[in-house]
């Protein structure tokens, strides 16, 4: 069942078109990430869903109800801010109680629900502290408890891990994913960190210049990127210009292309290449090693094969094997032709 629908949303700030025709829908209980570089419009889209901004075009619907023009305080949408936006003059418990107080719930009910919410985020012992005396991770949990205690229909999180250091970030990502699946709340994350998007989401919407470039499950994004931008934004990729003829890629045997004839781009993940002697059977590209390095389990090399950019390969390394010296003539073949994607030509 569709929980949230965003239909054709566009937003302009002055002359700058921040969002164009953004459309997506999220099923109940799913976690979606809006992923993109800074300035791609992802936070703007989140703020439109929360009602902090009105879109110029399009609609936002929750469970089929159009909420596009509903003021933010009348939407059942939880929001976790990038800097958490905890009220500095209120204690942890008062912060969590805020929404319930505003709703004029009975005092006993507020106390019970606040206690339960703080237990959910493992902060039961911190009820009387002020936010300034909490660590970043604890503040984040207060912000989440403050939103969840109102049992919103949707939880929106704007770069919730940005303010945390790298080690804590990983732990909190796992914790939050567990919490969300336990509570079963439909959630939308905003992030610029593709690893975070992969860890957290059922669906990822890659955004670029105000558009949704591709909406897919995390592994599908990696395996089947729809555009060169997605191919290089999600993980690393060699994007090689090729020509499609008769459902196959010219000069690259074994790669099928369900596309019309003409120029296209072949997306090759670095780990999908294999190293061969120059001119050996199965070689697709011959060239000289431009750079190579080995780091224990793998070695990485760049082969200058006469393409616009050198081919990058990440190869498993056997014990005692050294990285090939720069300038060595070598060949690269494709390990799994089915693991390549053929996409529209760049530009």
């Amino acid at each position: 069942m569709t929980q949230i629908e965003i239909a054709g949303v566009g937003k302009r700030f002055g002359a700058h078109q921040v969002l164009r025709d953004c459309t997506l829908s999220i099923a109940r209980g799913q976690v979606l990430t809006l992923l993109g570089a800074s300035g791609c419009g992802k936070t703007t889209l989140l703020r439109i869903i929360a009602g902090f901004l009105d879109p110029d075009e399009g609609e936002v619907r929750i469970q089929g109800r159009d909420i596009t023009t509903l003021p933010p305080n009348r939407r059942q949408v939880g929001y976790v801010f990038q800097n958490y936006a905890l009220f500095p003059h209120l204690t942890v418990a008062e912060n969590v109680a805020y929404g319930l107080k505003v709703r004029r719930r009975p005092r006993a009910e507020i106390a019970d629900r606040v206690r339960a919410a703080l237990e959910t985020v493992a902060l039961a012992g911190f009820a009387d502290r002020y936010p300034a005396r909490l660590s970043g991770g604890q503040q984040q949990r207060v912000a989440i408890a403050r939103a969840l205690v109102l049992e919103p229909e949707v939880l929106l999180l704007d770069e919730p891990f940005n303010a945390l250091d790298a080690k804590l970030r990983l732990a909190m990502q796992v914790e939050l994913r567990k919490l969300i699946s336990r509570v079963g709340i439909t959630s939308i994350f905003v992030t610029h960190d593709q690893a975070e998007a992969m860890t957290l989401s059922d669906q990822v919407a890659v955004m670029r210049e105000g558009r949704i470039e591709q909406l897919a499950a995390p592994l599908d994004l990696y395996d089947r990127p729809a555009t060169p931008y997605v191919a290089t934004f999600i993980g690393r990729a060699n994007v090689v210009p090729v020509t499609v003829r008769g459902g196959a890629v010219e000069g690259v045997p074994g790669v099928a292309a369900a596309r019309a004839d003409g120029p296209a781009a072949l997306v090759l993940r670095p780990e999908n290449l294999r190293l061969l002697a120059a001119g050996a059977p199965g070689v697709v590209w011959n060239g000289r090693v431009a750079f190579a390095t080995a780091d224990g389990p793998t070695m990485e090399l760049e082969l200058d094969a006469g393409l616009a950019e050198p081919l990058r390969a990440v190869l498993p390394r056997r014990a005692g094997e050294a990285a090939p010296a720069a300038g060595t003539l070598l060949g690269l073949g494709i390990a799994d032709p089915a693991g390549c994607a053929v996409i529209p030509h760049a530009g």
Partner: protein
Amino acid sequence: MSPRASGATKRRRTIPAIDRLGGLLLGLVAGFALLLLVAPSLIVIAISFEPRAFISFPPSGFSLRWYWAVFENRQLTDSILVSLEVATLVMLAALLLGVPAAFASVRGTFPGKAGANAFLLAPQMMPGMVIGIAMLFFGAYVGFRASDLMLVVALTVFCIPFTIRIVMARLAGLDPRLDEASANLGAGPAETFLRVTVPQLGPALLAAAAFTFIEAFDNVTVALFTSDVRGRPLPVELYYLVQNDSTPAIAAISAMEIMLSFVVMLVIARTVGLERLGR
């Protein structure tokens, strides 16, 4: 210790001579400035304890007779009452007008905002005398005579930039995300204002009230031109008093005013923290 940290300690140990000289000079200048600011007040307080009927420093003894004399002087007690009343009214008017103005100039988005800001803060750039004379002349033109009411109006114009600036400074430091968080949690704009903005603005409001009150209480330049001849406020009364008399009673009043300011600052420092006023 990492090499970087030890490098930093080494650098600290070898402060160039020129920097040390600069530090010394800065200390001297600061000390001198402090002396200039504080010494006159201390001298006035000392003089106020003079037992004889004329001003001398150091005082020839210790007596509180001039403090009693102040309260026995009907003219002086009347002017103190006028000043207290005027300062209270100015404080209220400046808060009522200044707080919304500060909101508009920090949070508002409207055409001509920069111009409106400049206009609001302009009286601060103008000598009080100019405001006083302008008010007097304008008053004469529309038939509005120098009076307590005119004094309140003129002082409000003069004081409002202080009020606005203190409130603006604090408002600018408030995270607008807190308002959004409040809305997201279900609070309407009025409830957000009461539950989120006012509690955080409290210290700034207190400070603005205190500063405005003190400024209105001891202003001479504006009051000289706009106050009622029969009901002069204290600073004007003192100004006339020192022209033809130099009794230690004037020092006693000044000492009490210094004490009043000091107590206000102390209360603010204890309740709010002086360092938060600037924010």
